């Protein structure tokens, strides 16, 4: 999509150029016409003076020199005449050796003739009858200065027009930029939303943008709300299913089944499968994924609570530590990230002897999380099995063995990479690379 600014400029320039050219050309033409009318009146006056100067002399018709304007005597003065009789014609002295051709028909002719000295002439031919003879008088006037001044006017006009156009473009650019500033602000805010720096767009916008911003905010609130509701519904569903499951598990271990060990084994196995499946699917369904652009995880605020919870669950003998740059915020949903880190750390705590460390770092591509423990670790050839369906490397440790499965699901949703390695203490090191959103 092209920018609004460019489209507006282009439209404005083309309209201005077309209108400007048409207007300038028309007004020049009208002005020239008016001037010619005025000059024509002068020429007609001249031709009538010539007619009056024609008098009957001793050898027939002759021109009364006293009535002639001196301009007709001076060569190339810019004023010329030609008088045509039936069989001869007279020329003004000013024409010198040039010939003023006879026009085809009476009337005003502009710039048709290239006169002496390259002058452009305005010629008026009028036909009369005088003293019993048909006379055709053509008077011409040099039109070049007028044309030259017209040319100059046109040049100045073009220059002024171009300057005006530039000025208007500049003003238009400024105006458009000012008018579009709220749009630009909204764009920046949406970018911030994507980076998780804000959760709502600013409502203080011009009336034109109000519905858009309100709709986006409404959508955000709606998404957040429905996520909350669906999480709550999942929690309720989990509660509704897990409580009876707890009863059944308890029944399966009760002494009433002591005499049926086979029955107890089958019951326990099946219940365990139901439980695993239920936990996994509920955990997956609870993930928000990318639904909320404004989500944010504040490491400083959340990590100590998470580590304290893990310490409570696994006992105070474990030293849990975290390394994160102060003030680091991760652009993902808090619950998802807690689930990811909680499961990773929980797994590490189950295996660790004394130490578990979580490191969060910001890299050029995104963020790197790593969880290390000082437990036995996993031999390289078994590492791929950890994530295969239903694999339970932690069978002997309590827990459901789903921790790493859900971790993998979350990392996959975020487009990240998970690598198992060896920590500096010899235990397992889980490294996760998450791309920036």
């Amino acid at each position: 999509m092209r920018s609004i600014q460019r489209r507006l400029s282009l439209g404005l320039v083309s309209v201005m150029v077309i209108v400007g050219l048409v207007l300038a050309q028309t007004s020049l033409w009208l002005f020239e016409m008016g001037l010619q009318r005025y000059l024509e009146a002068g020429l007609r006056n001249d031709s009538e003076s010539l007619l009056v100067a024609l008098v009957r002399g001793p050898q027939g018709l002759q021109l009364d020199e006293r009535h002639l304007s001196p301009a007709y005597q001076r060569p190339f003065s810019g004023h010329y005449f030609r008088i045509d009789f039936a069989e001869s014609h007279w020329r003004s002295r000013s024409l010198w050796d040039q010939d003023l051709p006879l026009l085809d028909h009476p009337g005003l002719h502009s710039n048709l003739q290239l006169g002496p000295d390259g002058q452009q002439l305005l010629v008026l031919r009028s036909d009369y009858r005088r003293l019993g003879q048909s006379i055709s008088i053509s008077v011409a006037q040099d039109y070049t200065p007028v044309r030259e001044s017209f040319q100059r006017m046109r040049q100045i006009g073009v220059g002024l027009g171009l300057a005006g156009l530039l000025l208007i473009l500049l003003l238009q650019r400024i105006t458009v930029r000012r008018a579009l500033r709220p749009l630009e602000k909204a764009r920046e805010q949406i970018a911030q939303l994507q980076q998780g720096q804000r959760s709502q767009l600013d409502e203080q916008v011009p009336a034109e943008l109000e519905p858009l911003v309100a709709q986006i905010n409404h959508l955000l609130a709606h998404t957040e709300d429905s996520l909350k509701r669906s999480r709550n519904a999942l929690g309720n569903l989990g509660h509704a299913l897990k409580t009876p499951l707890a009863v059944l598990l308890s029944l399966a271990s009760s002494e009433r089944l002591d005499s049926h060990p086979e029955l107890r084994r089958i019951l326990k196995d099946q219940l365990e499968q139901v439980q695993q499946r239920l936990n996994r699917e509920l955990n997956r369904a609870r993930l928000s994924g990318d639904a909320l652009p404004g989500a944010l995880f504040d490491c400083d605020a959340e990590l100590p609570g998470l580590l304290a919870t893990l310490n409570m669950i696994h006992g105070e003998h474990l030293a849990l530590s975290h390394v994160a740059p102060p003030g680091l915020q991760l652009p993902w949903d808090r619950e998802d990230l807690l689930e990811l880190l909680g499961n990773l750390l929980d797994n590490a705590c189950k295996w660790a002897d004394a130490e578990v460390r979580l490191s969060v770092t910001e890299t050029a591509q995104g963020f790197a999380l790593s969880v290390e423990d000082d437990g036995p670790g996993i031999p390289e050839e078994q590492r791929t099995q950890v994530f295969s369906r239903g694999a339970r490397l932690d069978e002997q440790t309590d827990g459901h063995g789903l921790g790493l499965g859900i971790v993998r699901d979350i990392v996959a949703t975020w487009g990240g990479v998970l690598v198992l390695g060896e920590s500096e203490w010899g235990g397992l090191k889980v490294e996760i690379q998450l791309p920036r959103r």
Partner: protein
Amino acid sequence: MRLLLVEDHVPLADELMAGLQRQGYAVDWLADGRDAVYQGSSEPYDLIVLDLGLPGVPGLEVLAQWRAAGLATPVLILTARDSWAERIEGLKAGADDYLTKPFHPEELHLRIQSLLRRSKGQANQPTLKAAGLHLDEGRQCVVRDGADIQLTAAEFRLLRYFMLHPEQILSKSHLAEHLYDGETERDSNVLEVHVNHLRRKLGRSVIETRRGQGYRFGGQAS
């Protein structure tokens, strides 16, 4: 050991009650959050097992009210809501442990044992040790110098309480409050009988009588 179980799902509560009683705990059961707020802080429980999805007042709110009122009793949260965000919330409200449903009854028993030991300042170890005795809570017997000594259920309960409170003077009424649930009639003569049985099995000096004050466990076990 007297526990309070707050759980609104009746079949689960029945199962848990039966299991806990087999483990030698005196258990009171409540199903409503409002009752729990009151009874939890008025009766001298040693541990509370609290479900979060409660009618009346939600479990977390119950816990927060207890902690606000200064109740220090360890609380184990029992919930189907197992997300880490909710676990952290539970901890912030003042829980001491967190067990998600469904669970194996043995796991609940182990968690309760370790939580009780932790709250009495005992190290986290598989058996309860005091005054040269090892109490095996799984088999409900006591081990001294490698030899098992069988105990009746009532003796086991009494000895466990003594071993969790070594060298403290415990009055008969205190013992009765912590060994019997709210519905059992408390007869101090029965306590005396059990104390005498323990002395016969473990030696006279193991439980000392302080006249007018009560009993004191943890003298010389000979």
